[in-house]
């Protein structure tokens, strides 16, 4: 049966990205290539995210294409994101494009797509969250709840112009900071998202891990970028 909410989400992401590359043209490649790359990353991320989820939750289902296709059952976000990143590294190498500027160039569009996905909870059954005085009534709820998905989307969208601006002159730290931002926001959001029991959800654990790796990477890059300057100063 048709998942109208997901269909609407896809359409919104596609339409918004087309508009975004027109309003903020990419710097490293042309608009058409950027949209192709974004599409490839998106499709690859969804496929890998789905397969990874099934490998964890229902390995037997990996032999049934019908089960794999029901994406709404679940996807692993960071598995898909990682493979998307690897694809971009490979593409940059193959097409002899500057890697970090390309990644920094794509980062704002990636954030926009992610923000739309998070806010699409409105059309995919409602945006869950803690009971609050300010919020929405998702379908079937008798109490008002704070829409965590919408809050995540707003935070991410607020970062888009900053990421675009910084990415022009500081591509490497911008890419790492973007990863840390998304991971950090997901980790914080996981605190407020409802869950069964008290244990951290897998989303929470992996987001904390990715945020930690991103922060360590940022520190390493910062130290490396300072070393030549210190050596020159000593000379």
């Amino acid at each position, binding site marked *: 049966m048709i998942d109208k909410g997901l269909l609407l989400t896809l359409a919104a992401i596609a339409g918004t990205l087309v508009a975004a590359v027109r309003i903020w043209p990419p710097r490293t490649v042309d608009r058409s290539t950027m949209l192709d790359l974004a599409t490839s990353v998106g499709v690859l991320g969804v496929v890998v995210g789905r397969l990874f989820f099934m490998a964890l939750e229902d390995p037997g289902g990996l032999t049934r294409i019908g089960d794999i296709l*029901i994406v709404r059952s679940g996807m692993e976000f960071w598995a898909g994101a990682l493979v998307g990143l690897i694809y971009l590294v490979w593409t940059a190498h193959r097409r002899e494009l500057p890697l970090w500027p390309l990644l920094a160039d794509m980062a704002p569009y990636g954030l926009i797509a992610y923000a739309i996905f998070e806010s699409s909870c409105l059309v995919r059954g409602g945006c*869950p969250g803690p009971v609050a005085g300010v919020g929405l009534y998702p379908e079937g709820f008798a109490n008002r709840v704070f829409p965590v998905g919408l809050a995540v989307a707003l935070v991410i969208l607020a970062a888009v112009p900053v990421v675009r601006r910084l990415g022009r002159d500081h591509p490497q730290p911008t890419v790492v900071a973007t990863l840390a931002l998304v991971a950090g926001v997901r980790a914080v959001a996981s605190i407020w998202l409802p869950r069964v029991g008290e244990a951290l959800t897998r989303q929470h654990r992996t987001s904390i891990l990715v945020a930690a790796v991103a922060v360590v990477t940022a520190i390493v890059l910062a130290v490396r970028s300072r070393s030549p300057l210190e050596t020159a100063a000593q000379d």
Partner: protein
Amino acid sequence: MAPSTARLTHGTRPGPRALAAILLAGALLLTACSASGADGSIVIDADPAPTPETGSFPTLGADEFEAVLAGLEGKPFIVNIWASWCGPCRTETPLLARASVEYAGRVTFVGVASRDIRQDSLDFIDEYGLTYLNVSDRQGEIRRWMGLRGFPTTFFFDADGNLRATIVGGVSEQRLAALLEDLLR
């Protein structure tokens, strides 16, 4: 400013975007394994019947099942319709099993195996160690009465037996926990 024409030659073959649109439109549009049934609301209007013993896996008709649900009023309850051949059912069942333990005594869980071979259903229950009541809908009456549109479907009822929410397709931990907590407030 980047040039508006593509720097890379795409020729006449469909680009990634066209292929992606075709693939995703087909794949991502699927919510659940298909089923037929009318879409309607559920009203429980029967004399309450005793709850069958957990593990007995009785075969019930629609009227009997309605009476069982009437007997559950007083606490929120959820009804999950599943089948052993259904992929999303296998994905969500461990979550439901965990939730049934976490919310034991506060929310009643009932599973309905429909359009399924009895032994396969029993194997499924054993495989996932389900400790809540499951019934067999051998004739399909229960799924027709509940207006099933796809496998799995989870129905959330409040303590008065009013249907509050229906989730078609696998239920996520977020929505399950959110709805259960809302039912308990």
